[in-house]
């Protein structure tokens, strides 16, 4: 049995290699492909592979933490606060329009409020990974509407830090009073980290970044996991802890952290998405297909409206607004992180298949919409 472990893990990694290559060729996100692979090799899937669950489980947990840590590393505290100030109107429109569809579908399906709250989060948060990749691949960083898109994504990430903390409290099923104190604790933690990161961030960065690559890698991982673990102990989700410690790392230190931990994130991030797919029984998808398709259409439309509004507020013309709209449609990594909370807690059996279908649909539809609008631009280039 033991000897099969390496073989199967190797096979899974090779399968992932082909998927990322295929995704790269079409400038697509590999995330939906990872999910599908997980669905296929899960115990209920057509090709059940008996890969060590514990190994992938641990890898997936690391993956989720690294995804959020490096998300925090990408931003400085100043960028977050400036972004929030510049785009709070778009950010509010975004939250209202895109949280409600998921939440309402959950309520209509007669789910518990915490489960509906999680589905709202799934439809709310755009995939900053997919959007950023499309912006780079298409050479759109110089576009007028690009800051609008990035600002909306920044606000979503800030909101998510608080959202994950609230969701963690709701999922635990603690009473209203305890939930309130957890929420206040989370908000206090966010504020404390943002303030101390502004003041002591450079010292922290220097502390970690003095020795060889190995000790930096180990030191960073050690700090991230310790803070994430502590956050979990006080019922503020581990991911929030990782995101906040990422914010505190800035400047050259952030650059080095990205170089060293980026490959680890890619490896364990892939494990995370595959693991999520593993847990979903594909036969549970057809029963939720109708609400899922409806949600895909509505959640795509609400993001289109959000992008249009955000683009207009940054002074972009109709074509720029259309591009901004299409860029926000894709949902991905963070929707899956939120849905994973629902699986862990066993809140609502329909949540995982529904969320999987919605994310699959939107992670594919979003880039297609963007490519279509890019083609439309090409056709009258230099006309």
């Amino acid at each position, binding site marked *: 049995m033991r000897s099969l472990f390496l073989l199967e893990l190797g096979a899974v990694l090779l399968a992932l290699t082909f998927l990322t290559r295929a995704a790269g060729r079409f400038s697509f996100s590999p995330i939906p492909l990872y999910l599908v692979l997980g669905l296929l090799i899960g115990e209920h899937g057509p090709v059940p592979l008996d890969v060590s669950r514990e190994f992938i489980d641990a890898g997936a947990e690391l993956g989720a933490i690294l995804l959020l840590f490096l998300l925090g590393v*990408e*931003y400085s505290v100043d*960028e*977050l606060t*400036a*972004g929030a100030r510049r785009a709070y109107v778009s950010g509010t429109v975004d939250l209202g329009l895109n949280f409600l569809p998921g939440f309402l579908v959950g309520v209509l399906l007669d789910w518990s409020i915490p489960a509906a709250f999680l589905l709202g989060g799934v439809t709310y948060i755009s995939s*900053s990974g997919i959007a*950023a990749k499309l912006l780079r691949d298409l*050479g*759109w*960083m*110089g*576009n*007028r*509407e*690009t*800051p609008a898109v*990035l*600002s909306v*994504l*920044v606000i979503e990430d800030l909101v998510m830090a608080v959202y994950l903390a609230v969701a963690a409290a709701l999922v635990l099923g603690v009473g209203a009073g305890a939930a309130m104190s957890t929420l206040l604790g989370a908000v206090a933690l966010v504020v404390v980290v943002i303030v101390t990161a502004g003041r002591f961030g450079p010292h922290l960065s220097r502390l970690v970044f003095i020795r060889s690559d190995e000790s930096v890698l180990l030191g960073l991982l050690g700090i991230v996991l310790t803070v994430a673990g502590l956050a979990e102990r006080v019922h503020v989700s581990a991911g929030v802890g990782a995101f906040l410690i990422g914010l505190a790392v800035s400047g050259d230190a*952030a*650059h080095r952290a*990205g170089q060293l931990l980026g490959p680890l994130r890619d490896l364990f991030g892939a494990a995370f998405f595959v693991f999520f797919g593993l847990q979903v029984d594909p036969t549970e998808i057809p029963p939720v297909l109708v609400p899922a398709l409806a949600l895909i259409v509505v959640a795509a439309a609400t993001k289109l409206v959000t992008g249009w509004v955000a683009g207009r507020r940054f002074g*972009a*013309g109709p*074509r*720029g607004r259309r*591009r901004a709209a299409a860029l926000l449609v894709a949902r991905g990594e963070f929707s899956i992180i939120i849905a994973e909370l629902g699986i862990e807690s066993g809140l609502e059996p329909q949540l995982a298949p529904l969320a999987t279908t919605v994310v699959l649909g939107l992670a594919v539809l979003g880039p297609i919409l963007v490519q279509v609008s890019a083609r439309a*631009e090409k056709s*009258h*280039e*230099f*006309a």
Partner: protein
Amino acid sequence: MITPRDIPVDRTPLPGVGLRLELMAADGNRLGVIHLQQGGIELFISRSDDPDLAAASVTLTPREAATLIELFGGSSFSHELSHLQEAAAGVAVDWLTIEHGEPYVARSLGDTRLRTRTGVSIVAVVRDGSVEPSPTPQFVFAAGDVLVAVGTADGLARAGALIRGEP
């Protein structure tokens, strides 16, 4: 960053990406650079039929960017000077252009008596892309010369008026 005063430069932070600096050229094209957090500089030019869209973008290493700046000639000078401005608080740097038909065309730096009248020093003159550092009082101006002037903000304003022949 110092730029000639009459062309407004938009600074837009791109969270997670870098800082974008851009301007509108007189021919209606938007162009600019993005200083990437990852290092390097992206240069972009908008499309004339859709000024919101970057038609072309090129990513340059810092060395390539420095070389390109040198190709632009005088601008490399502004790069050097930006450190000077940071170093001295209360001292500003400005660009003063000698336009056709203005009173000091074909007259010398000494004739302006700029330092006596406004306290402003001319530290360099940029002509056709080449730089004349520390011009002497005998230096004779030509139309199109760009004077790199250092002084107080108030002094610079008066120097600009003096060069244009305004009272």
